[in-house]
């Protein structure tokens, strides 16, 4: 669906170097990024501000011409076949609107039908579906300028789907939404991927989006890909430590001498102890059986590292 190899984009910036002198400087926004996305995948594309995410997206959709490398989306060259590509992909920019401010939502959709040249029957069917799932009926006839952000985003996503794209690119789709609206949108996108097989590529700063939606995560910083893989694998690779929380039936002295295990915290005079261990050296099951031989255990819990920690570790690389 997407093939990118050694993709790069450099901007020339002119700086003041004196009263009249100006120096030109090249700034690398994206420097030699390679990846591939297959049909039906759900990929989260993340990175700190200024990492090159939006620049990549603009090159994928053909708005920006790459200065290096090769990019193909749906088998097309985006910047050369922009209009053709636009008919096959959907794009949602979380911070921008593709709807007409002064027109009712329904009329925006109708206009898009003509722009994308979608047969009336297909359009009606898809609109019906989206309206059903996203609950658009109550505000279909409201001018876009009067919609709340949550309502507008639901409209934006619908607008991007009315021409039945194979690939949906979302640039920070959940930005500014409340928890309920976020959840609703994620559910919808997830269903879209499973039932229609639409490939999803999304950039976000909300890691819950990734956790809930994306089977694969790609981390980019300063124009380079830092990590690429399933979330679980990245988690094991970057933060192999797990924390085991053990509640004993009665206070127990600090556990020592367990192989590859470090004590994180002892609470309640030894009633609750937190231990960190590496998953590649010892399994949680072995560890629990070793501990229960020393003192009767009331309860145990294994804490997975937070996705935020994983990403923070990755950015540090």
């Amino acid at each position, binding site marked *: 669906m997407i093939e990118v190899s050694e993709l790069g984009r450099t901007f020339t910036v002119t700086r003041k170097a004196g009263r009249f002198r100006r120096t030109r400087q090249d700034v690398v926004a994206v420097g030699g990024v390679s990846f591939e996305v297959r049909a039906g995948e759900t990929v989260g594309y993340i990175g700190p501000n200024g990492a090159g995410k939006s620049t990549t997206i603009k090159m994928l*959709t053909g*708005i920006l011409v790459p200065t290096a490398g090769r990019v193909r989306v749906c088998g097309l060259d985006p910047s050369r076949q922009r209009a053709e590509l636009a008919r096959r992909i959907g*794009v949602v920019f979380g911070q*921008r*609107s593709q709807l*007409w401010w002064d*027109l009712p939502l329904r*009329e925006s959709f109708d206009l898009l039908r003509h722009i994308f*040249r979608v047969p009336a029957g297909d359009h009606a069917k898809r609109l019906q579906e989206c309206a059903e799932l996203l609950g658009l009926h109550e505000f279909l006839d409201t001018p876009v300028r009067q919609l709340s952000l949550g309502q507008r985003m639901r409209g934006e996503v619908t607008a991007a789907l009315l021409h039945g794209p194979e690939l949906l690119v979302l640039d920070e789709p959940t930005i500014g939404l409340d928890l309920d609206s976020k959840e609703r949108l994620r559910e919808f996108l997830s269903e879209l991927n499973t039932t229609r097989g639409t490939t999803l590529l999304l950039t976000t700063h909300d890691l819950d989006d990734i956790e809930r939606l994306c089977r694969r995560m790609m981390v980019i910083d300063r124009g380079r890909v830092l990590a690429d893989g399933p979330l679980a694998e990245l988690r094991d690779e970057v933060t192999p430590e797990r924390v085991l929380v053990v509640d004993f039936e009665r206070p127990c002295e600090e556990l020592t001498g367990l192989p590859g295990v470090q004590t994180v915290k002892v609470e309640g005079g030894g009633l609750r102890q937190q231990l960190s261990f590496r998953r590649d050296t010892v399994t949680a099951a072995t560890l629990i059986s070793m501990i229960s031989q020393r003192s009767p255990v009331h309860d145990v819990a294994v804490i997975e590292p937070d996705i935020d920690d994983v990403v923070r570790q990755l950015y540090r690389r």
Partner: protein
Amino acid sequence: MCAVIGCYLRITLAGFHRYSTYRQAVLAGTATNIVFGLIKVGILSGVFLARDGASIGGYDLTTTITYVWLGQGLLGVVDLWSEDDLAERIRTGDIVVDLSRPWNLQTALLCTDLGRAGYSAIARFVPQLLLGAVFFPFRWPDDPMVAPAFVLSTALAVLVSFNLRFLLGLTTFWLLDSRGVRSLYSIAAPTLAGLEIPLSFFPGWAQHALSFTPFPSMLQFPINVFVQDGPVLAMLAQQLLWALLLAATARLVLARAMHKVVVQGG
């Protein structure tokens, strides 16, 4: 082909609809046009009074008053200097949305503008034409062929004006903020297009110099067609030439902008 025409026709209708949603704004605009029209009628009548009614550059008092109401009415239609949506969209980066659509941006925006012009023709031009015709000395054309020629000339004026505005908006891609260029234009264009006084009041050398610019094509020519001043076909031909020339230039500049320049914002 039908689908293409259907698409752009639909965009034109949406343009019409978009502007028709702002009734109060249109009303306020028309009221302003009328106030300025009254002031111009006052001043220009004074000029003729001082000259004992002697005509200036072929314009007598009735023609001049007719010119005032046509000009005031057409101003909203050809739109010489309104807020530039395009420049604003480039400045904020919203242009990425327009660029990721399967359409020709220039044609799409032109259609929106034609829709707007169509609405303005009904809501702003016609009322002022009637106002002028009913309450003031007014010079109706004596040849029925003037009507289609005037409509055509006005449409061409909109094309010329749109492409000039579009070009100015595109400079934002390079300048990052084109307010300077546009404010210069908004001062120069009305005078050079013949909004304040008819271009035939200008000294000969100035008229000659202006005849090499697109400005008269945007306002003075449609008015001239209506008041039957000058060769109709030559004026229409010049308007057509400017419309094509500017459209082609804008197309080139847009292609250049798309290839080279940064789309701003994250």
